[in-house]
């Protein structure tokens, strides 16, 4: 029979007593942790994709206008 790998741990420090405890996460806490990490990665990926799309659109516009980014700044100044 395969033995289960131990779950990750968390650190709890009681500031009144100074006692530090290393506590193994429950299965539910591990599942929540993984879910939250996936959500964060999705949000960051969306932000990165949006930033990339904005940069590409800006480059395409500059190309169509046949001006540089510095020239565009001058126009808007």
């Amino acid at each position, binding site marked *: 029979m395969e033995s289960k790998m131990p779950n990750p*741990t*968390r*650190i*709890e*420090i009681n*500031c009144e007593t100074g006692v530090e405890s290393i506590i193994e996460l429950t299965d539910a806490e591990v599942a929540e*942790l993984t879910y939250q*990490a996936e959500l964060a*990665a999705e949000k960051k990926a969306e932000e990165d994709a949006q930033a990339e799309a904005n940069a590409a659109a800006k480059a395409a516009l500059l190309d169509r206008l046949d001006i540089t980014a510095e020239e565009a700044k001058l126009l808007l100044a």
Partner: protein
Amino acid sequence: MPDTFELIASSTVGSGGAANIDFTSIPSTYTDLCVKFSIRTNRTGSVEDAIRIQFNGSGGTAYTSRMVYGSGTGAASTNYTSTAYTVSFSTSTADTTANTFGNGEMYIPNYAGSTNKSTSSDLVSENNATAATAGLNAGLWSNTAAINRITLTPNSGTLFNQYSTAYLYGVKNA
């Protein structure tokens, strides 16, 4: 310089990493709190991660965060609203140079008062390459309870790596 900073507690992550660092039973006898971090997470696929900070074990949707950051290629900003934690950006990951740790600090004024709790923080990810990020963050916990617990969790990774540290200081009026 007046002796206004007092170390309340500290923690160093041991082998195997830690899913979070949780300061509990924080005394209400100071004016402000300051947390100093040296953090590396196990996130892969990116050279930047962030730290989630939750107060009093309270989740829900009462937190907002705004952040501006500069990387090796540009500057940007983002925000988080109605979250269960405030987010501070950025710190090192498994993809940054080996044995480097991001560092930063969060300041929490009037943590024991009866108004909503604001925070400010600055963090940098350390990486011996062009891609490294520095972030300035503002956070708000729309709750009037005194802060007695602070929980730090990786945002995209699942563990703080071994040798990551967090120091909690109490700040008194000079």
